[in-house]
């Protein structure tokens, strides 16, 4: 796994011709606008994880073009605090058939800023038997937080699988009640649920230190 810790710029356009796992951990001071384009060649898999714990405005656009029998797994985790404005857009284009894509975005909007998760999955004419799924979830910790999750699917073939899920919200009352009914305090329950949405993504960076760093950042949040 190639991990990039706190890169100054993310912009790139690359051809992926052998299986690759890549992780980015954004902390501070990188260029505000970033565009990452990946052309994923036939029979190739790209595993991309982007974790953002930065204190600044962020605008990241990821685009993956999938050729025959290729696959991409994109995960984004973001913690948005204060009044920062963070936009993440993940687009996947199934250019050829038998390609598979999974996009998962999880966020916490802890302040009064904006956190946007956008994304289009496109299956073009002729990309038969392609399979796409995108999901996004943001937990607002502050009533003044502005968040939006809007995945969309553009499908031009019938024999494909496509699905999406989106959720923005404060805590789910039934989940909280369930955890508390087992003795966890309100605070502990919220922590478990909040960490829970981001941690699996951070853990997939496969780096204990980064997991610790992320936990510390989340531990400082007042829930």
């Amino acid at each position, binding site marked *: 796994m190639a991990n990039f810790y706190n890169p100054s710029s993310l912009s790139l356009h690359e051809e992926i011709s052998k299986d690759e796992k890549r992780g980015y951990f954004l902390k501070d001071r990188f260029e505000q606008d970033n565009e990452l384009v990946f052309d994923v060649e036939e029979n190739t898999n790209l595993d991309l994880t982007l974790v953002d714990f930065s204190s600044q405005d962020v605008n990241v656009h990821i685009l993956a073009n999938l050729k025959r029998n290729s696959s991409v797994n994109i995960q984004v985790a973001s913690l948005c605090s204060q009044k920062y404005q963070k936009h993440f857009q993940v687009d996947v284009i199934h250019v050829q058939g038998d390609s598979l894509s999974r996009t998962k975005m*999880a966020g916490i909007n802890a302040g009064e800023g904006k956190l946007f998760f956008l994304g289009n999955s496109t299956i073009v004419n002729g990309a038969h038997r392609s399979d796409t799924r995108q999901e996004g979830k943001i937990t607002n910790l502050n009533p003044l937080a502005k968040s939006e999750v809007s995945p969309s699917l553009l499908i031009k073939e019938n024999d494909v699988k496509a699905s999406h899920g989106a959720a923005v919200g404060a805590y*789910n*009352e*039934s*989940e909280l*009640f*369930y*955890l*508390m*009914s*087992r*003795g*966890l*305090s*309100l605070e*502990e329950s919220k922590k*478990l*649920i909040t*960490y*829970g*949405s981001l*941690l*699996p993504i951070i853990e997939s960076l496969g780096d204990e230190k980064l997991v610790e760093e992320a936990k510390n950042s989340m531990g400082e949040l007042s829930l």
Partner: protein
Amino acid sequence: MENLIIENVSCQAEGNEILTSCSLEVNKGDCVALLGPNGHGKSTLLNVLMGNPRYEVTSGSISLDGEDLLSMSVDERSKKGLFMGFQNPPDVPGVVSMDFFRAMINAHQDKPVSLIKFYKETTQAYKRVDLNEEMASRHLNEGYSGGEKKRNEILQMLLLKPKLALLDEIDSGLDVDALSLIASIINTMKEEGTTFIIVSHYDRLYQLVHVNKTAVIVNGKVALQGDGELANRIAKEGYSFLEKEYNIKIAKNEKKANDVSIGSCAVKQVIKPEQK
């Protein structure tokens, strides 16, 4: 626990009154069958006992060993030894069962449980409810089958060893073997001192665990109480004898009255609510 005293409790949710002056007393060692037609308030009563914020108690009192239960937070109630097995346990995506179980056990003791003890206890509990231990690394209840969810509730009860367990239709969706498995767990815990309030629509579980008391909830209150025999009679005959013998009229829930046909629920005699 020595006793639980519920006195004239009324509650509402989203503007609808559900419990109306509901009273019930439960003593240490009791195994209570809580019955009643669909939608008459059984789950609501259990949720009020556990402190679900969706239900607002508008009057009445509940005491557990002389302490005011209604003034306690949900987690305090759990720490006092209360446990509810949910009729519909929610999925908690993102929360790994193992992490949750550990937090749950730690919440009940001063010092955190040692890793070795924790693994030993959970392994044992998974065995006892006959669930694959690998489920511990999955997200809580997510993607579980109906029966697996119920077993997972019992598993948590085993880990917490509550003083008073409220089980809401824990037997629905269980296969025959699972039912006797869970009955035997309940029986063992009874011997170890746990008191039970069990909601079910079937007499099978009631017979297996030898309930000693029956309370029937009709129209938001406990309308009739009796010994264990009463539960068996209701399971056989339904609720129609309540009106004939005890003059308890089973009114239908106003909200549901439009779309539920009389034949579809267990209510044999229905007095239509007056139109407002």
